[in-house]
């Protein structure tokens, strides 16, 4: 009778579970907040966002989960990831195993070199931010835009509105540019991967 | 136990001078009313009265022994810790 129940049960399929992971300063939490707000403003889906901090108050690893569902969301944290964004090698090592088979993996190839699968979307978000968008700070927004393009989870307009709502004053243009870059680069990549 | 102050203007007047006008006469009600229930016989009024108006009774509570000397200077009643002294003259 051992594990009879555990063998049978299934994690509910009405939940779409996403995790954004990276290091303290990379704005993972903010990115998920923007994503959650974008969804909240658009349709009736339920969204829960939560995070956990690294061992110290500042710096260290950082992860933020978003769960999206048409139904009531009971458990607020991810159980089996449908989607994973990794921005550092540390988070790759830590969280890759939480991604379910067939889940989508998006990787910042600027900083992550050791990727345990071939099935992923890789873009150099940090480099793109520094070199194309003019500031390393918007790497998260580029990633967010790319994710929107890859997963189709949210429209460009809704995302732009949500990003601008949260972006500090004076950074609007940089953020808009970041969104453009993200969508464009992801579109290219999708094409490459031949979808 | 040094308490040195600092700053600003000084301000340390002593008790105001007695008015000098009040003069109790035999037959008048006594200058002060003393609430013997509240009085705890602390001796403060007796000791501080500049005119030695009081004598202590057997329990140590004040008796107006020399009412004619009282100037209604206020000292006894502003110093009574038990609010036991008032005056119908003031």
């Amino acid at each position, binding site marked *: 009778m051992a594990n009879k129940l555990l063998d049978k049960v299934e994690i509910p399929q009405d939940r779409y579970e996403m995790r954004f992971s990276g290091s303290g300063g990379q704005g993972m939490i903010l990115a998920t907040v923007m994503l959650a707000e974008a969804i909240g403003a658009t349709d009736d889906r339920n969204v829960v966002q939560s995070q956990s901090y690294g061992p110290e108050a500042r710096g260290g690893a950082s992860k933020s989960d978003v769960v999206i569902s048409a139904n009531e969301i009971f458990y607020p944290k991810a159980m089996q990831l449908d989607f994973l964004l990794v921005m550092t090698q540390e988070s790759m090592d830590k969280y890759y195993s939480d991604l379910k088979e067939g889940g989508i993996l998006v990787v910042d190839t600027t900083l992550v070199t050791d990727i345990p699968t071939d099935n992923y979307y890789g873009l150099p978000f940090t480099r793109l931010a520094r070199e194309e968008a003019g500031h390393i700070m918007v790497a998260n927004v580029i990633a967010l835009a790319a994710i929107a393009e890859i997963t189709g989870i949210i429209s460009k307009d809704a995302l732009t509105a949500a990003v601008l709502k949260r972006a500090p004053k004076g950074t609007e243009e940089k953020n808009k540019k970041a969104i453009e870059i993200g969508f464009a680069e992801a579109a290219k990549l999708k094409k490459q991967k031949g979808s | *136990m*040094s*308490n*040195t*102050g*600092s*700053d*600003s*203007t*000084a*301000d*340390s*007047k*002593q*008790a*105001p001078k007695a008015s000098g006008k009040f003069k109790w006469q035999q037959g008048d009600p006594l200058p002060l009313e003393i609430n013997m*229930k*509240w009085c*705890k*016989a*602390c*001796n*403060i009024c007796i*000791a*501080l009265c500049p005119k030695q108006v009081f004598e202590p009774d057997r329990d140590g509570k004040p008796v107006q022994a020399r009412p004619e000397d009282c100037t209604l200077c*206020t*000292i006894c*009643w*502003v*110093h*009574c*810790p*038990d*609010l036991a*002294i*008032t*005056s*119908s003259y*003031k």
Partner: protein
Amino acid sequence: MATAVKEKQKSNVVLDYLRPGKAMPTVWCAGCGHGIVMNGIIRAIDKTGLSKDEIVMASGIGCSSRMPIYLDFNALHTTHGRSLAFATGVKFARPELKVMVVTGDGDALAIGGNHFIHACRRNIDITCILLNNYIYGMTGGQGSPTTPSQAFSTTTPYDNAEKHFEPTKLAIAAGASYVARTTVYHAPQMEKLILNGLLHRGFSLIEVISNCHTYFGRLNRQGDAVKMINDFKERSVPIARAKSMSAEELEGKIVTGLLHKKETTEFCDVYQSVVDRVQKGM
């Protein structure tokens, strides 16, 4: 809030301010200086013309802190040392009330030291009357932060190895805008300093040196109430005179009068201006 200063006062005015139903006499020992301060506080309040309803009198725990129970104001007899924090809540919630705090040297400066310096810092409009008898009266004569070095108390049976605070100095350094000191001997001066403290907008501290002959007096051979009160008289020096005296000359002296006054903004007022600004969308 009417603040017309009355000039004439009847001797029996004190009786008007006693709480109906609370039996006098007080719990205080015969001759306890705290009663003299209560007498003076009533007279000062009466002169302000404030109505009893407008006045909140908060206190902590200690002989001194029993005072609000006897007086017919809104009384807040709180926990030991915390009265200024409670009073800050009252005042900030309803700035139109006149908030007074009656506290002891232990209550204000030992356990309550932090609230004391922060109330000074905020310069919140509270009139704080500190009854300094150099000892914990209520609990039976333990040393307090104002117990002089080398004085005796039940917890300094071989004399006090600690140094003592000067509350007024601390208050000034912390930011209080009205700071005065007097003694129970100087009843008329006390009344006047308290009255002016009440009229001052900002944090005012009036330290009144009070006699606890039952403990401090007995343990330090300072005699009874009368002897201690007369001793306050002997040892007092008005601030004007103190200014021209040397530190040595001032050793053991009690400097009396208004020690410090500063015109500056008051906390509730400044906060109100923030609220106004925010509500106007500025």
